[in-house]
């Protein structure tokens, strides 16, 4: 079983309740978040950031199920995943 699974199957868990934020100017484009995300929230940006990398962007926030894998794996402190305003933590889990 690979760390970065080829075909993605969304784990159960209500989607659409999460704010996913990537600090694009801090991103070094390792690609970990993209690979680890079970529901393809991330995508590459086509223009370089000030570090000279083509950074990651949030493409499909609505898919996010708040598994936090991206947050855990990002080596450059870029990612924040938070419950959307109004929906309290408990409900989200």
């Amino acid at each position, binding site marked *: 079983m690979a760390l970065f699974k080829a075909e993605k199957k969304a784990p159960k868990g209500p989607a659409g309740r999460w704010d996913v934020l990537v600090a694009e100017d801090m991103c070094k484009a390792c690609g970990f978040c993209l690979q680890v995300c079970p529901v393809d929230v991330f995508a590459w940006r086509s223009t370089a950031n000030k570090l000279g*990398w083509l950074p990651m962007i949030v493409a499909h926030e609505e898919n996010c199920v708040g598994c936090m894998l991206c947050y855990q794996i990002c080596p450059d402190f870029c990612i924040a995943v938070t419950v959307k305003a109004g929906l309290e933590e408990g409900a989200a889990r």
Partner: protein
Amino acid sequence: MAARGRTRTEILISGFGGQGVIRMGQIIGLCAIKQGHRVTMLKSHGTETRGGYVRAQLVIAPQYVDSPVVENADVFVAFSAPAYRKFYDLCRGKILYDPEMVSEVRTEAPERHVAVPATQLSKERFGKELFANMIMLGALTRLSGMDYAAMKQAMLEIIPRFHEQNLAALEAGHTLATLAPA
């Protein structure tokens, strides 16, 4: 400085890491050695892993080179805007720059500026930027009147892989229409 101008050629190459700046310098240096010249090459880099600069300072002369420092470059190859700005004043000769990377150039000495669209050409011809440095080298060889055959030979010795593409890139640079005849 007259005393040195006579006897030495100074070449300054600079850009981002990963653009093949040092490789380019190595090839030029080896080529010169094969032609019986003495050569020095200083490598230096800014601190940032990215966004900084990589610099090769080459001095080529018939006899032993004392100062390896390029203080008055005969040729300056600029692969990035920061590099262009940082080292502009060290050049009193031709400046080859890649317009895709160096968008603005000083206006005071147009005759010294030569735009070599290496990155763009590399992308067009090879689908990636990887060969921009060889295109630039081709152009430089032509402009500075260095021995093209010898340069090819040196390139093949130093670069392990992709010989066809690299040769093609060198050729592309060497035959660039925009270049004034050597």
